Structures are given as C-alpha cells and as structure tokens.
C-alpha cells in the first residue's frame, strides 16, 4: 500500500482525501471547517481525526502529503499592462491560469489614484507587463517607478518588454521589493506566452504566499502547499483532456465549477474555427483557459448574480410565479451561505440560479462569431474560442454535485439557437464530478499523473 494524503484548504472547508496509489482508489474523504483565523492546523487535524475513524489508521502516516489552498481569500493579484485589449488582457490570463483571483487590472501609465486603489486592494502579487519585446518601454519603466514609490510591499512578477526588464528590475529592487523577471506575456503582437509567468507566480506562491497566509504551519505535517486550489482544478482538467504518456485522456473538454462566490469555467481545447471561411481575430486564447466570474455565485454573490442576469433571464428560466419568491430566497441564502434548499420550490429556485450562472459564465468564456457585411457579401469573424465541437462537459461545485438532475443545470452551458453567435458546446456528453474530487486529483497529478488520471475517469459519472 502506498498512500497519498491530499488536502484542500478551502475558504470554508478543509477537505482531506486519502488515495491508495497501488490499487488506484480513493480510500476515504473527510472535511472540517477551515481555521485560518486561529490556527490552520486545528481544521486539518480535525478532518484527519475524522478520517482516521473511518479508515482505522492515521492519514498523516501517508507517504505523500500535499495540499492546495484557497483559504484566506485565495491568491489575490492585480495585473498591469499597456493596452487593455493586448498586454493587460495577456497578463490577466496568465494570472487566472495560475489560479489567482484577479482583483483589478490597470492599463497605460499608472496614476497616483490607481496606485492608492492598488494599495487598498492589497494584492498578494502584482503582475507587471507592457510592451512587446522591443516595443514600448517607457510605460513599463514609468509604472515600475510608480510601484517603487508606493507603499506596496508585495512580490512583483515582471513579464513585459524584455528590453526594459533590466531597468524595471533595477528600479523595483532598488526600492527593496522582491522582483522576479520572467518572459514577456506577449513577446510579439497577438502572441500569447503565459506559461513562464504562470510558473513564476506558482513559485512565489509556494515560497512566500503560503507563509504570508498563515499556512506554513501546515508544512510541519505535510510536504507542501503546492498551488492555489483553482490551479489544481485546471491541472485536473488538463490531465483529463490531454492524458499522459501512459494513459490516454478523454479529449477536449469544458469544466464548469459553480461555487458559492464564483463560477469558474475551464476549457482545454484549441478552439479554432470549426467552419471553413471563418477568420480568427483578437488575442489568441491559451489551450487551457480559465475564467472566473466573481459576480456569478450561488451564495455569497447570489445577489450580484441576479443583477448580472436581469429579471428577463430569470423569468425565462423560472416562470413569473417563482420569480416573485426569488427575493426571499436570496435573502435567506446570502445570510447563510451553507443553506440548502428545504422544499421543492426552493430546489427550483436554486436550480434556476445555477442555470443562469452557468449560462452567463459560458457566454463570457466561449468565443463569439461576428458577421461583417462587406461589398462582397457576409464575412465571418471569430473572437475567442469556438467550443461548439467540444465533446465533453464536466460539472462540479456544490449545486451540481448535490442536485438530483444535474443535467438540467449543465444544459444551460450548451449552444443556444436563440443566441447563435455564442460558440458554446453543441451537444457534448455530460459528466458530473460526483465525489467532488477533481482538485485533489489535480494535486495528485504532481505525484502520480497516470493514477490521478485513472481515478478522475472513474469518478466522473455520465449523465
């Protein structure tokens, strides 16, 4: 028996999973409240004690012990670039891909008031980009000068114009800041290069953020907190889609994670035009793309979800009668984020909210087709990813895992004939992560990728 203990320090719960690597099966899971305010170890020990009762041995004796974390607000970042649609967007995608919550983005020269806003937001890391290699250098240098003068004392990842990198690093280090120079997120116009920035962010996460968030104590009991939880989920999605040299993947997929505060969408797909004669425009998309919708959540951001959707979308999903009861339900769930629906009507409201969250999150994640009328007839232009041919759609998150018919929620992610320019999956096979296990498998992927992939496949339930 070779055991691995996988820990997810979530914002609410600390979840522990023990996997037997020889037999490739999950031996047990348990959870306890996350105790980051007092001592992170309390929650971890509590969960492990629970699991010990189920298993008959101490899970902390496992050979491998690794964790991911979204506790204490997760990994908070701001991204700075030059042009909003170009280096700012590229920097934002790198941060999202690293599993961060992007609090805000800043374009062009930073102003004094933007700097103040940044100081108030208190990011854990700043990602500083701007200019293609050999392109604009004045703006990133000026922004480094501004950051050097600010009271922010956080690590800064420099991923901009390589010609300016040395000067930028000199300015920041001169001010006593921890500055890491990596490759440009956009080395040439419209060429995306997010992987080096992503790796640098992860290094800083392991070296510094873990202890800054009071998680380093956990490292006395476990080998390490390897990554933010969303990065672990993205890892699992990539593993599932692409496979390993020893085990084939299932192919291109979309994964929707509906949480209490956010709805995350991960797609692992090329997203090239699926029809002939379509022109691709805009910034290229990373093959493994993650978007986070901070205004689309089932509990903490339930009210924001309703505002984002507007009344029409809700009455379309729920019918006018139920809509009238929505207000009372919203008040109940925002007051108590652990609230579960009590009766049939509340289940319907919960489901309706989930459908709207999935639909909106997918609309924002998927690419769009635009028709341009030229003197020679219509031309088709695609922005973002064409996900219409993607064969798999995976659902996770409380509302999907606990719902009787999760397919009804997930279908909201599908291509909609009434909204044909949104390039969402046309008729994918649907799966649910019924054990809520994907983050743990993303972590396990760091130790035993083949095993993690095989267990993930077993845990997906087809709808």
């Amino acid at each position, binding site marked *: 028996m070779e055991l691995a203990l996988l820990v997810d320090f979530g914002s609410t719960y600390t979840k522990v999973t023990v996997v037997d690597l020889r037999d490739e099966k999950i031996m047990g899971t348990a959870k306890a409240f996350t105790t980051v305010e007092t001592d992170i170890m309390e929650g971890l020990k509590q969960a492990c004690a629970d699991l010990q009762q189920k298993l008959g041995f101490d899970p902390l004796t496992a050979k491998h012990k690794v964790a991911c974390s979204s506790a204490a607000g997760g990994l908070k970042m701001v991204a700075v670039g030059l042009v909003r649609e170009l280096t700012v967007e590229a920097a934002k995608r790198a941060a999202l891909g690293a599993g961060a919550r992007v609090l805000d983005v800043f374009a062009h020269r930073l102003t004094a008031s933007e700097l103040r806003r940044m100081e108030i937001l208190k990011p854990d890391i700043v990602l500083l980009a701007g200019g*293609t290699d050999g392109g604009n250098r004045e703006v990133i240098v000026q922004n480094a000068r501004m950051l050097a003068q600010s009271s922010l004392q956080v690590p800064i990842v420099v991923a901009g114009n390589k010609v300016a990198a040395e000067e930028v690093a000199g300015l920041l280090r001169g001010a006593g800041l921890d500055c890491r120079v990596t490759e440009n997120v956009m080395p040439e116009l419209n060429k995306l290069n997010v992987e080096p920035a992503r790796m640098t962010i992860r290094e800083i996460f392991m070296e510094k953020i873990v202890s800054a968030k009071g998680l380093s104590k956990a490292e006395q009991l476990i080998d390490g907190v390897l990554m933010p939880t969303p990065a672990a989920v993205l890892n699992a999605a990539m593993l599932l889609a692409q496979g390993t040299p020893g085990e084939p993947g299932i192919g291109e997929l979309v994964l929707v994670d509906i949480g209490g505060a956010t709805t995350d969408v991960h797609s692992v797909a090329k997203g090239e035009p699926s029809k002939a004669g379509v022109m691709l425009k805009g910034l290229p998309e990373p093959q493994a793309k993650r978007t986070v919708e901070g205004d689309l959540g089932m509990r903490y951001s339930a009210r924001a979800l309703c505002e984002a959707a507007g009344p029409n979308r809700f009455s379309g999903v729920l019918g006018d009668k139920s809509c009238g009861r929505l207000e009372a339900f919203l008040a109940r769930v925002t007051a108590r984020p652990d609230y579960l629906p009590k009766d049939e009507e509340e289940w319907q409201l919960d489901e309706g909210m989930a459908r709207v969250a999935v639909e909106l999150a997918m609309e924002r994640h998927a690419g769009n087709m635009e028709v341009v009328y030229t*003197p020679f007839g219509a031309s088709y232009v695609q922005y973002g990813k064409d996900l219409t041919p993607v064969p798999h759609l995976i659902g996770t998150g409380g509302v999907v895992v606990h719902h009787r018919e999760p397919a009804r929620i997930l279908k909201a992610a599908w291509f909609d004939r009434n909204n044909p320019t949104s390039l969402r999956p046309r008729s994918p096979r649907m799966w649910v992560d019924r054990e809520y296990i994907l983050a743990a498998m993303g972590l396990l992927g760091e130790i035993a990728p083949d095993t993690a992939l095989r267990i993930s496949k077993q845990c997906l339930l087809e709808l």
Partner: protein
Amino acid sequence: MQKKTLVLGVIGADVHAVGNRILDYALTEAGFSVVNIGVLATQEEFINAAMETDAQAILVSSLYGHGELDCRGLKEKCVEAGLDDVPLYVGGNLVVGKQDFAVVEEHYKEMGFDRVYPPGTLPDVLIRDLARDLH
C-alpha cells in the same frame, strides 16, 4: 542598427489579403520588423498594435473603394493615443472608380495621412520612402 517597426493592415470591412501578404514579405525582406494585423482591421487595432510595439510608422491598405469612410478619424485617434509623431501611410484603391489621383491625395493628406499611394504602386516605392522618412 535596430530594425524599424511598422504596423501593416487592411482597414475596414475589406478582406483583400493578397497585397497585404506581398507587402509583408517585401517589407520584411527590406529589413523592417513588420507587425501585420491582417485584413478586417479596425482603427483601434492599428493604434493598439502601434502602441504596444512602439512602431515607427502605420501602413494602411484599402482596396475596396470605401477607404475614405474607414480612414476618417484615424489621425485624430492617433493624436489622442499619444502617437502624433507616428507617420501614417495609405495606399490602394482609395476611392470608387477612376478619379484624379491628385485630388484623392490632397483629400487623404487633409485627413492626416503623410503619404498617399495610387493603385499599382510597387513595394519598392514605399520602401524607398520609408527609408527616407524614418531615419
């Protein structure tokens, strides 16, 4: 000496890609660093590209006769974006039908373009002008 960076593209709802590729090839061969934003390019795309790449010139093609509508306001936006000293070049079938080129040229210069080329101009002419203008 560092290569000069040029932004090249076909403006508006214009899908003529052949000339664009020829210019890309000829200019690259002539030693320029060409940032080609391709066909169906909007004014904003020209400006954003020039800003990020610190381009020394913006080269606009228009082949389908509606160039005037597409090009109007580009210079003003460049000024707003802080690109007032980046010269604008334009060429192609800039108007519908056969009009007196001197009138067309005058008109585009009023719109803020620094150099205006008639249909059938060979890349050599443009390259010679660029070498002279961007030193």
